[in-house]
């Protein structure tokens, strides 16, 4: 895949981020559950954030 098309992955990631950090996802994960001792909503927020960063790094690497 060429560089310009790979770069468009960033736009897709932006859209994904907008969906992850928005209604209704935020409310769906707001449950009184602990994940490894951490409230689910906190784990979700930081987990989704880490996912975006990892995918961003992947795209940047593929762009060379």
């Amino acid at each position, binding site marked *: 895949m060429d560089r310009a098309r790979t770069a468009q992955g960033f*736009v897709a990631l*932006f859209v994904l981020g907008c969906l992850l950090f928005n209604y209704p996802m935020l409310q769906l994960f707001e449950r009184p559950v602990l994940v490894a*001792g951490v*409230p689910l909503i906190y784990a979700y927020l930081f987990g989704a954030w880490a996912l975006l960063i990892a995918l961003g790094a992947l795209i*940047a690497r593929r762009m060379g």
Partner: protein
Amino acid sequence: MLRGWLVVLVSFGYIGLLFAIAWYADRRASQGRSLVSHPVVYSLSLAVYATAWTFYGSVGRAAHDGVGFLPIYIGPTLMVLLGWFVLRKMIRVTKAARITSLADFVASRYGKSALVGGLVTVIAVIGILPYISLQLKAVASSFQILLQYPEVIVPQKAAPLPFLDVTALYVAMFMALFAIAFGTRHLDVGERHEGLVAAIAFESIVKLVAFVAVGIYVSYVLYAGPGEIFRRAAAQPDLARLMAPFAAPGSIANWAWMTVLSMFAILFLPRQFQVAVIENVDERHVKTAAWAFPLYMLAINLFVLPIAFGGVLAFPHGVDPDSFVLTLPMAHRSEAITLLVFVGGISAATGMVIVETVALSTMVCNHLVMPLVLRWRRAGREISGDFTRLLLAVRRGAIVAILLLGYFYFVVAGEAYALVSIGLISFAAVAQLAPAFLLGLYWKGGTRNGALAGLAVGFATWLYTLLLPAFAKSGWSGMQLVASGPFGIELLKPTALFGLEGLDPITHAMIWSMIGNVGAYVFVSLASRPGTTELAQAKLFVDAFRQGGERAAAWRSTTSAAALQALLGRFLGESRAGELFLAYASSHGMRSPGDLEADADLLHFAELQLAGTIGAASAHAMVSTVAQEEPLDIDQVMTIIDEASHVIAHSRKLEDKQRELEAATASLQAANEQLKELDRLKDDFISTVTHELRTPLTSIRAFSEILHDNPDLDPADRQRFLGLVIKESERLTRLINQVLDLAKLESGMAEWHTAEVDLREIVGDAVSATSQIFKGRGVAIDARLPAHLPRILADRDRVMQVMLNLLSNAVKFCREGAGRVEVRLAEEAHGLRVEVEDNGVGIRPEHQALIFEKFRQVGDTLTDKPAGTGLGLAICREIVSRLGGRLWVRSRPGEGSVFAFTLPRVASAEAGHAPRLMERA
């Protein structure tokens, strides 16, 4: 034991280290081995975003509303993911136009408008003041808290620490000195400060290490991991409530608006623009920063919640959560961690203040002071004197003034708010730049007036809905107005404008200011007409990825190169200007700047260099003092239209030419085909002629051989054979004569003796001449000649030849004894007509056209021996057409034929001499 002197010593030691790093980076830069040209350094420099607000304030915010601090970092994460498209475009434009600051960028976009630049500067400075006061407050508080060590003297919001104001003033003054030392030691070309960036990147590492250290300390030393903290927090109703942050109505709206706000902030805070765009070395670094900078923010926020909850659990009452980062290790007497946190806090605050004030001072100098200075000087006579010192002085003064104003804000309003709330007021202010900036970057239709309107409306709304309530809350002024609206009109209450209630004040302000801002921008843009410079600049910005460096307006010189160099010297310094001109001259193949002419290119070059120091608007104004701009006036527009119509006319002509050429090609092709046909005909003719010659020759030879080989042949036979030889010889002679005759006729070599002739006489003679043949075959002939006919111009012998041929043909095809031939002569409109009618065998319709061709004889060639040469009619038709007439035949098989020809009254001009294609072939 942490004593005051130790804290001061560590602080100054740390600042000294920063200077060393900056000095080293500057030295490396001057050696051409840049220290900051690395994507990681770029990403770390972006982390100047994390200030004392992040360092101290996030914990404070988290203690109040859980994850409410997170959108401030998630927004930038989303925005830098788009950095490859948005940020890189900003960098591209900035490098191409040598833009020096945020205000310069917006001013350049809208036709290098000094007014836009000034307005953006005012908004930025006033908007950023709360933010700077936040840093002062954070550093002063942390210093004061630290001085109480080991007592945690609880700094309550309502009861400020003693001497806090004085400490904050000292902090402000020291920070001003740092900023001056870092940012305005000398005038940098293009406002790039490599040393500053290196120091900022280092500070980003320090604050991250410090915060993660205290996070680990709190989570794992004071508690048994985050799990324990969250478990214990869940047991407290106050804290358990924070674990369901999106349950409250409007909470997601607040979250979303906060995210949008910080998306704008990461681009439009003056310091972010400075490090992300102005200080960018290589636009490819943006790609790495897209994930590395979010990773940094994730790391620095990871322990915010554990620290916040841990702090609330540790200090049930009375400790300001904004100080948890510092007070938690203090309370447990961890001196090293405490000191590390203090240094981290200083890092976060100084980094922000230095970059912010340097960026703002550039804007104040280039967009507020310089336009006024230039105007004032121009009102006098000439712009003279060295401006470099003035520029530096203005910038240093601006830094001091900004910090003093920040201190002033702190004194007036700072103590009433938590850190994050103060910072968000600034975010909302710079967000007002977003419509003019972003829409201007992607929509060419945005105009200067639209930008001014949008900025003004947005800023006014911000002042009314955020800054005014902030002052009121601190009890300084406007209390009455905020409580019950202006003139008691509830609907206009600043914190619940038009009855919009139940939202966070920031969200409330953002909704109304963005509606007003974007609305005014778009409406006025559509209603106003942009100038030519505006149009050109809009194209430059919006199409940044599409074109190379194209300049907007041409200059018409009214000055010399030396004067231009002197002008540059006043702003950049004599030596720097000299270097630039020398480089320009050598790149244009000249030995010295003295050879240069102050043409449009050189003026453009000078403007760009000036823009790199004093901003596009001022540079434009400066160059316009020595040269005249050539805008697109009506003449030029007409010229362009004219050129366009020329092009259209030209292409029409080309089309016509092409059509002519096609026609010529077609006719040439046709001629070529004709020539080929004629060539083929000639070949046919030659082969036919030789064939026709061979037949009688073969007979003659055969009979001669018989005579020769049989000397004792019967005399009667001998006589018969000799007769045949003679007859065949005659035929051969006739044939050769006719071929020669035809060749002559067709080549136009035949001699013509045109004279006035009487056709009756010729026809009569021809009939008399052939009467013997008719008698011999028993064919009757009847000539019907009118009594009187006009004489015509013709060749008598040739007409005679035609008549004889037609008559002998007629007699040939009549039955012996029963034949009858009639010759008629009549006058027509244009000439005379001769008809020869017989009652012979006739000619079948399919043969009627063929008989005029050479060597075509119709009839059964197997049984009938041809009675002619096959050239007679061809010759006749040739003669008649040469005389300007026509020869044709009407016939019915079995009933007879009529051969007719016409001759014009006046002989054709062609007759006798016009050459023909055949002759050339």
